[in-house]
């Protein structure tokens, strides 16, 4: 399945990441957990792609699969992950370390601020990352570390501080500095602002966009926060139970959502600009990926599910140029012709 890549590469910017039909399972004593199931997408230079989904939908697993930082019980079943045209799936761990991680694809892991080692100075930790991956002198590495700190808005003199002397926001900035140490072409940011207060979060968002502007680095932003992703991303993928429900240009997906899950999510999300409104929930909760429902995985919660949804898994199809949706009835729903098979919305 090479869906949509032709239409996507037609736009500006070279493709830095091309993921094709990627499937990854975890083997557990209870069975196979289908965490990432047939995902296809691409990210161009300097672009931000948002991956939105709820907990357990596989979005962090997707990031770890691309970085090949998976635990031993995980297995890439099929697919390709092309980083600047080279497939990383067959690469060994040492090859990944030498050729891809940090230098091509860097990751700001979830809860990154707690990944700093408390007993080393911030500057030393950044310099260490540089020294481990490139043949430079200690002095050069420290000079670069200071440069990176000032890029992320931290006074380079603070390089001599320990992590406990930094606030949460500053730690996150330092982690972003570290991720940029080897000039990666793609930055994977997994929930980069959770656990930060909203004003600090706003600063980090501005910083990431600023870094993208200055360095031309592409960003894959993973978040559960629809609003955060709307602020940052050109393209967005709505992920549900290991699959993409909808994928396309952000404006199109937010302004004319096609998948019932996207529609439901947007109704469930409070918008601070709007006057008081009633929020609607999507009944039920996401499925267990050990035994996902047959056919469409969203059908157990969907307001429009019919028999076909149980028997056949809808494929991601190009509904409009560059706008993909995986739903049998998207056209009927869009035109208001789809019958409601389940009541949705407020429990009041």
């Amino acid at each position, binding site marked *: 399945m090479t869906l949509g890549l032709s239409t996507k590469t037609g736009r500006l910017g070279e493709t830095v990441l091309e993921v094709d039909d990627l499937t990854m399972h975890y083997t557990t004593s209870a069975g196979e957990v289908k965490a990432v199931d047939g995902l296809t997408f691409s990210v161009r230079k300097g672009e931000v792609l948002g991956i939105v989904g*709820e*907990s357990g939908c596989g979005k962090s697993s997707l990031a770890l699969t691309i970085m090949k930082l998976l635990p031993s019980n995980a297995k890439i079943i099929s697919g390709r992950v092309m980083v600047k045209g080279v497939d990383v799936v067959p690469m060994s761990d040492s090859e990944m370390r030498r050729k891809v991680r940090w230098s091509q694809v860097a990751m700001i892991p979830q809860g990154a601020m707690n990944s700093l080692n408390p007993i080393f100075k911030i500057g030393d930790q950044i310099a260490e990352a540089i020294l481990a991956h490139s043949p430079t002198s200690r002095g050069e590495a420290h000079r670069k570390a200071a440069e990176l700190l000032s890029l992320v808005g931290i006074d380079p003199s603070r390089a001599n501080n320990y992590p406990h002397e930094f*606030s*949460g*926001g*500053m730690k996150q900035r330092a982690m972003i500095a570290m991720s940029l140490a080897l000039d990666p072409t793609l930055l994977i940011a997994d929930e980069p602002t959770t656990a930060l*207060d*909203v*004003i*600090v*979060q*706003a*600063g980090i*968002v*501005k910083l990431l966009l600023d870094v993208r502007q200055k360095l031309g680095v592409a960003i894959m932003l993973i978040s*559960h*926060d*629809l*609003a*955060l992703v*709307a*602020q940052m*991303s050109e393209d967005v993928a709505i992920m549900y139970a290991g699959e993409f429900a909808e994928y396309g240009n*952000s*404006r199109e997906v*937010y*302004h004319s959502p096609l998948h019932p899950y996207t529609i*439901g*999510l*947007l109704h*469930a*999300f*409070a*918008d*601070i*600009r709007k*006057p*008081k*409104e*009633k*929020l*609607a*929930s*999507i*009944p*039920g*909760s*996401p499925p267990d990926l050990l035994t996902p429902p047959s056919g469409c995985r969203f059908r157990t919660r969907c307001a429009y599910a019919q028999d076909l949804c149980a028997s056949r898994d809808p494929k991601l199809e190009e509904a409009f140029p560059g706008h993909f949706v995986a739903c049998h009835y998207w056209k009927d729903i869009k035109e208001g012709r789809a019958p409601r098979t389940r009541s949705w919305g*407020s*429990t*009041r």
Partner: protein
Amino acid sequence: MSQDGGEARDEVVLDVQHLVKFFPVRRSFSETLRGAKADVVHAVDDISFKVMRGKIMGLAGESGSGKTTVLRAILMLTEPSSGSVYFDGVDVTKARKGEMKKLRPRLQVVFQDPYESVNPRMTVFDIVSEGLFINNLVSSRAEAEEKVIKALRDVQIIPPEEYLYRYPHELSGGQRQRVAIARALVLDPEIILADEPVSMLDVSIRAEVLNVLLAIREKRGISILMVTHDLALSKDVVDDLAILYLGKIVETGPAEQVVGTPYHPYTQALVAAVPVPDPGGPQIKVLASGEIPTNISPPSGCRFHTRCRFAKQICTDVEPPLTAATPGHQVACHFWDLARQTYLSESDAR
């Protein structure tokens, strides 16, 4: 219940007056030897507000603003350093044990994390009915069952009979939180204190829990005091909102007004930092510098002056009192009018 015989609509259910909670910071051994003065964390520093019958009051602010401590102090889960909390004419902070025991069923709480707050070894029936038995509110198991079923139905656990003997691990996060609400509800409380009741839940199920809270308020006239950090949500759920900063209320009023047209530069910074779920919508703005300072030695004067873009000398010297700016809308800022006008002109521009 009302003692003054006033109209039910304007009846005060909970009256918090000058609530203060300081936590002493542990001194090191050498500091103790030198007899150094112990530092104190000014978690809550002179906070007053009222919760009216049938209303939902929200406390919002960043982490470290003291919002959860206020809630814990009201429940006497942590003893306030000073101040009073009047509930039904009784000062909870001075109530004796027996008195408190009688008050507790009427003053209930729902905690943040439904994965931590319900006992995994108890069935739904045991969880919800525990309070009934402890407080001798039922004489038989059948009576308890009837009340539990009613409470479960009120929180949309349907059909309730089917859930009575299930364990928490068989429930989703949203269902767990609704069971926690049922546990509060079954005691027929006058007020429920909810500490970030949906922040641990996924977006698609937050509304189901919030709508349950709204429905029980509507149906039973129960007041709710809700701690939250989500301003967009509070605008949709809460009637009155108080914004806390370093242990003080800096602004309070009808939620829609406070969020829609914030007067205090801090509230403005909070609102401007909230992203909107619209790629073509306004961009977030950073209107306050730095991060919330430590409340061990909070800034002099106005506590926000270190981050405020309107700060002048007076803000360092004089603490602005919380005063009524417009009817029902109070703010603690020397320059709120300038701040408001600036904010409005900037909003027009964007």
